[in-house]
């Protein structure tokens, strides 16, 4: 029988995946459930709710509270229904006098060691202990309250987001189990035994100082007020909730935004979310305070020059001002002199509208997106080889993988919820191969089985991937059946001849990669021999001069071993931002219309021209770096930037700043005065994901709904601003709701043809392609064939980057991210996540530090060909000697002052991951940092002067 799954109900124990059904009778109700289902869950599916406290359907049955006891015909005693599997023909009773007495007496024991302050307790109204006391009819506690107890146990308030009140703890271990089973961090344990048992974080050192990563799984699991969000303690219980999608990383977690009116009380991961299944990380779960931060831009502002104070104006005036300038510039400098940048943080609908605005109203293809600087090589590389610019799997697919190869990604920091899922699979025994210059946390996964680290030198990805392929081919580990059936013959033959050349052998490239050949050979065998092997990669692959080559090399690996087209395998780019996939899908690139349809393709272009009523340029427009160069050269004069902070995130900051200063009109639409806005003439207030409707597409091509839970702070959702600008430019746009924009997208984009808001409501989410062929989407791609028919092996010659260590710059700098901060930090820096990372530091190996007389916390000057900045030192063995590492979450760090203009040969994705640098001890900030500081002060003063004088 088909069972209805209600994500708002807790069924007590996880679902069984068995296909065999057993039929049992519970309180006279017959129900069939998959073999292995607990009696508790079977009952819940029949709407019979057995009392419980320690059970929760995201945790394995534990059997500690004993409230869920039932009576089973022919069985001795009163077994716990959570730990008893349903069996064929079983007869179960969940209510009788004996059970009632037992439950009441157990509850009496619980309450004999629990405060009686229900009315003033933060969990009042949302407390399972309270509910159960009510359910079992507890009327008195005969033990009294002067026995031994924990009522004076101290509170731990060290974590900024939640409080641990030990006096309320019932030792159900749900928090401990959630930390282990769901999050995989194992930060929590029960300390002591018997009556002295208590929850302890780390070595009983408090939550903040322990290994706790503040994912919130424990808080969510707690059935009492023991672990409670501080926001709930302050504001009380929410009164309604709305399901929406997180706006942080590319995992795309679904959350219930729990509200009091238009005030957000807390974000609770939504069990019905297909990407996260009710799990979360510290960012999505807790770091939403930026949305109501005092720094939010609350009104449109304009100014004639960036050396002037801002002037707060009406929307009409601001839009009018912008339109007038754009028209004037085009009139004077030509149609090609303006352009725009779409945002991977905005919705699909918003991104679609911005590129439409550029193509239809600006009349050119000068549109690009921040994916340029992160995953553009993915788009290119996967399109060339597999025929589609997207990852091939669902996240859940990893649970079927036997070997996981992670290249240039750090999932436990950058994609934490996927990281937890991956760790779960690793605990189950899948083997792990990590190719990364750094020792990432994944390698320290508790209960990890076989794991290999290939600590390659930055810039040697292609050599490494080729070496792996070389071993597969020369040791006869290919899946010849798959290749013959699914891959194009000529390309394969050429590739095979290429890759088996001895110059690709692990021994031959050992000097380049720095990794011992036998380790590489072993890794290749592990990957090739696993029944299901999956590759996950991140920006450590793409952000290189040969980013696209590595992506193609990765696709080659998967093709050669037949690891495409089913669960547990595939090529999986881990997308950095919430809507990187979506912004690429929506035609943000200068050469592609929505759905990766080339502007030069007359048929596709014709469809858009017909629908939009304009002629579309058949020549690709400018990419972001071209825009900068053209701006400096003087023929690119105006730029509309929605929700991207190019001044902080793009490489070679001084070059970017020069370009921005050269513009006659910079229109920035953002929620804060970001670094780019400091160079802007028009500042249009953006809206956060909480303030608008739309969709995001995550790294697994999953289109998730974003739902408005509060009004936009400045009155307009981002898409409405673009609409207003288009209309002011005399290109009419009329949409009453983002659903209408999606309808237009569906009509023009074959892979989105079947997508609509109605269907999203019904299905929860949809993975594209979603069309007549795949009416409810496509979890796994390339099952039967590739969009290009047969897959195409690509030749991937290793060409070393020109960015090499030399005597002047002897170290290689590589950059990355940290769990608590997100990207340029504009959001997370305005939350309590600052507790964990309030400045970017330079991680340096003890050997390199020793050579330079560097100690922890010393100020270090870092110089490259591009620039110079100063950061504090952190001595760490996570890197190999010769490699230093930093993050770029804080603008004053100037991490991108050092990074260079080098970029991917195919897509111009910057080479963030390799910069030759020298490091030395210094005593003061760099000149750039001093200038940054002065400009920061000045621009904020301009902002404060924007408000009309009080009447």
């Amino acid at each position, binding site marked *: 029988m088909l069972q209805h799954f209600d994500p708002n109900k807790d069924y007590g124990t996880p679902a069984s995946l068995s296909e065999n059904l057993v039929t049992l009778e519970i309180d006279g109700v017959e129900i069939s459930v998959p073999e292995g289902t607990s009696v508790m869950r079977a009952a819940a599916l029949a709407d019979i709710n057995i009392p419980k406290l320690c059970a929760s359907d995201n945790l394995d049955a534990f059997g*500690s509270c004993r409230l869920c006891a039932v009576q089973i015909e022919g069985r001795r*005693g*009163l077994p716990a229904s959570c*730990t008893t599997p349903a069996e064929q023909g079983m007869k179960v009773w969940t209510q009788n006098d004996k059970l009632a*007495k037992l439950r009441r007496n157990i509850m009496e*024991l619980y309450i004999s060691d629990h405060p009686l302050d229900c009315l003033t307790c933060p969990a009042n109204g949302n407390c399972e202990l309270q509910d159960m006391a009510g359910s079992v009819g507890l009327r008195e506690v005969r033990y009294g309250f002067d026995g031994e107890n924990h009522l004076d146990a101290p509170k731990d308030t060290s974590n900024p987001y939640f409080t641990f009140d030990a006096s309320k703890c019932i030792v159900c271990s749900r928090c401990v189990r959630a930390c282990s089973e769901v999050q995989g961090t194992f930060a929590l344990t*029960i300390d002591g*035994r*018997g009556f002295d*048992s208590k929850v302890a974080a780390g070595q009983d050192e408090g939550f903040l100082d322990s290994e706790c990563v503040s994912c919130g799984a424990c808080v969510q699991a707690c059935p009492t007020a023991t672990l409670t969000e501080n926001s709930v303690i302050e504001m009380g219980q929410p009164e309604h909730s709305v399901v929406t999608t997180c706006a942080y990383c590319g995992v795309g977690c679904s959350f219930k935004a729990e509200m009091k009116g238009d005030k957000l009380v807390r974000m609770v991961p939504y069990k019905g979310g297909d990407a996260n299944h009710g799990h979360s990380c510290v960012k999505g779960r807790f770091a939403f305070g930026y949305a109501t931060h005092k720094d939010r831009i609350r009104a449109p502002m304009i100014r004639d020059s960036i050396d002037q104070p801002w002037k707060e104006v009406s929307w009409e005036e601001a839009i009018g001002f912008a339109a007038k300038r754009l028209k004037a510039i085009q009139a004077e400098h030509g149609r090609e002199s303006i352009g725009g940048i779409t945002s991977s943080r905005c919705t699909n609908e918003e991104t679609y509208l911005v590129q439409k605005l550029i193509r239809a109203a600006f009349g050119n293809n000068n549109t690009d997106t921040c994916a340029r600087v992160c995953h553009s090589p993915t788009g290119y590389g996967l399109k060339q080889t597999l025929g589609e610019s997207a990852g091939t799997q669902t996240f859940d697919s990893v649970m079927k993988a036997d070997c996981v190869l992670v290249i240039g990604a750090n999932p436990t920091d950058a994609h934490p919820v996927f990281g937890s899922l991956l760790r779960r699979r690793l605990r189950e025994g899948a083997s792990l191969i990590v190719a990364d210059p750094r020792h990432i946390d994944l390698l320290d996964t508790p209960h990890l089985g076989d794991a290999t680290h290939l600590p390659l030198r930055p810039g040697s990805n292609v050599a490494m991937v080729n070496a792996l392929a070389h071993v597969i081919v020369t040791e006869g580990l290919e899946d010849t059946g798959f290749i013959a059936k699914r891959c194009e013959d000529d390309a394969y033959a050429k590739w095979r001849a290429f890759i088996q050349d001895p110059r690709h052998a692990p021994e031959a490239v050992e000097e380049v990669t720095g990794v011992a050949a036998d380790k590489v050979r072993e890794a290749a065998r592990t990957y090739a021999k696993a029944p299901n092997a999956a590759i996950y990669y991140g920006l450590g692959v793409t952000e290189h001069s040969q980013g696209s080559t590595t992506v193609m090399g990765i696709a080659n690996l998967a093709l050669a071993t037949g690891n495409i087209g089913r669960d547990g395998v595939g090529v999986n780019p881990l997308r950095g931002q919430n809507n990187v996939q979506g912004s690429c899908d929506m035609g943000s690139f200068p050469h592609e219309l929505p759905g990766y349809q080339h502007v030069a393709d007359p048929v596709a272009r014709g469809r858009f021209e017909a629908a939009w009523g304009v002629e579309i340029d058949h020549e690709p427009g400018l990419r972001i770096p071209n825009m900068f160069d053209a701006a400096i050269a003087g023929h690119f004069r105006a730029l509309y930037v929605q929700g991207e902070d190019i001044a902080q995130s793009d490489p070679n900051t001084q070059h970017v700043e020069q370009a921005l200063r050269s513009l006659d009109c910079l229109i920035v639409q953002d929620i804060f005065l970001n670094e780019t806005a400091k160079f802007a003439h028009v500042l249009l207030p953006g809206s956060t994901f909480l303030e608008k409707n739309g969709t995001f597409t995550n790294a697994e091509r999953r289109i998730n709904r974003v739902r408005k839970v509060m009004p936009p702070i400045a009155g307009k959702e981002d898409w409405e601003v673009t609409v207003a600008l288009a209309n002011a430019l005399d290109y009419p746009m009329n949409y009453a709701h983002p659903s209408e924009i999606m309808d237009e997208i569906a009509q023009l984009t074959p892979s989105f043809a079947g997508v609509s808001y109605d269907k999203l409501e019904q299905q929860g989410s949809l993975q594209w392609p979603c069309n007549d062929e795949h009416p409810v989407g496509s979890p796994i791609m390339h099952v039967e064939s590739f969009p290009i028919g047969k897959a195409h092996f690509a030749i991937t010659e290793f060409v070393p980057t020109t960015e090499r260590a030399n005597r002047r710059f002897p170290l290689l700098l590589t950059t990355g991210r940290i769990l608590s901060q997100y990207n340029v930090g504009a959001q997370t820096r305005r939350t309590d996540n600052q507790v964990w990372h309030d400045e970017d530091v330079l991680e340096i190996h003890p050997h390199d530090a020793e050579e330079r007389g560097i100690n922890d916390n010393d100020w270090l000057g870092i110089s490259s060909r591009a620039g110079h900045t100063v950061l504090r030192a952190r001595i760490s063995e996570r890197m190999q000697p010769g490699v230093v590492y930093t993050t770029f979450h804080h603008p004053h760090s100037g991490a991108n002052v050092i990074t260079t203009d080098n970029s991917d040969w195919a897509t111009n994705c910057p080479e963030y991951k390799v910069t030759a640098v020298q490091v030395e001890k210094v005593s003061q900030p760099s000149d750039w940092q001093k200038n940054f500081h002065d400009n920061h002060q000045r621009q904020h003063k301009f902002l404060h002067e924007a408000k009309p004088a009080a009447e």
Partner: protein
Amino acid sequence: MAYRVYVPSDTTAKALGADRLAASIDALAHEMGDPLEIRRNGTRALYWLEPLIEVDTPEGRYGFGPVKERDLESLFAVEFWKGEVDHPLALGLVEEIPYLKRQQRLTFARAGVIDPLSLDDYKAHGGYRGLDNALALEPQVIVDAVKESGLRGRGGAAFPTGIKWQTVLNAPADQKYIVCNADEGDSGTFADRLVMECDPFMLIEGMTIAGLAVGATQGYIYLRSEYPLAQKNLNAAIETAYANNLLGENILGSGQRFDLEVRLGAGAYICGEETSLLESLEGKRGLVRAKPPLPAIVGLFGKPTVVNNVLSLAAVPFILDRGAKAYADCGMGRSRGTLPFQLAGNVKQGGLVELAFGPTLRELMFEFGGGTRNGRALRAVQVGGPLGAYLPESQWDTPLDYEAFAKIGAVLGHGGVVMFDDTVDMGEQARFSMEFCVAESCGKCTPCRIGSTRGVEVIDRIRAGENVEGNLELLSDLCETMVDGSLCAMGGMTPFPVQSAMKHFGEDFVKHTSDAQALAEEA
């Protein structure tokens, strides 16, 4: 030819000065030109006679005991090594001492007879014949033999060992384990220790046979850390076994593999509960697991695992050597074979008494134990460890049989028998049961974790005369809650001694009040 003298070497004998005694005998013998060869046997476990010195004679081994340092002069004077001499400590032929003679020592046949660490001794006394036989048998045949022997789990639960083995044999897996529960923690018990200290090869042989029977290639002995001598002897015996191809990858050239390791516990009683033991063995906190799944299917590291008590595994070599029938021929009803009882507490003749099931508790306590040590009237006896019921005289004629004991709400458990004279305060003993649970509860399930603490408090209130009637009802409710609601036997059986004390010795609870009647009604 030198005369051979045996000085016992188990922990009890050592505690009573056996090592010093051995050294002194050696020194004295040396003075007189070495006519004595001193051998260290285990112990016969007739503790009131320890240290029990034995000498070899053509008629058999003669005994002297209990021997103190000061007795050596007179023993040497009568040339005790000749055996039948006139001395106040002379016991005659050891095998003829009625306490020993009347036992059916199947498992403990070699205890005190052989040098525990001598493989030759072990083999000379029938050791490794069971393994020899087992190596020639199909696994199912071995399992069938254990089933036919009627052997039941000697740790206390009395689950049929053969059925457990069958479950593990039937469970398909790439790895299976044999785990020996040597966390002997019941008050008044020492039989496991004696096996490991006095006849360690027997346990190794039993575990090896178990491995062959179910297809397990790795065994672990989970040993309580309070048994350092057992650890030493086991490790020495394991080393010898490896050196003689009795353990390892090719047992006696058969191509069969079995590896064995000793792992130490850390002092938690609950780790004697099999699932807690497995958690502990895996390096985790000793927390009880819910069953199902049974350890036989999902056991150590998630693999099918036989978890058996020392005595269960120690009985296996006999069964495979002498046949299932020889073992099953002993006993009564569904309790087949023998159970090594351990007499302790206020008892005149403490020690190990291995008996076929059947005699009464009274016979055990009086005909073997000889009544109380101080001669006072015996009032109560606790059988089966700290979770066993207290039995009043009216129940002492119950036969020593699992079912007969179950019928009166008692257990035989691991065979520990702790005796109390008429000065015992049973209210205090009941309180102690709860207190023991407070100290040893793993803390996982609520009835045990909170209930035991509340149990102590309620008993204190009753004993202080506070609202006796109400508190007795509450105590009775609490016991019911713990029995019905606890996750494992620890919480589930803690009420047994309490309830039995309330029922049979109610006057002790209310002696400070006049409310004895209320108690009788509640109980």
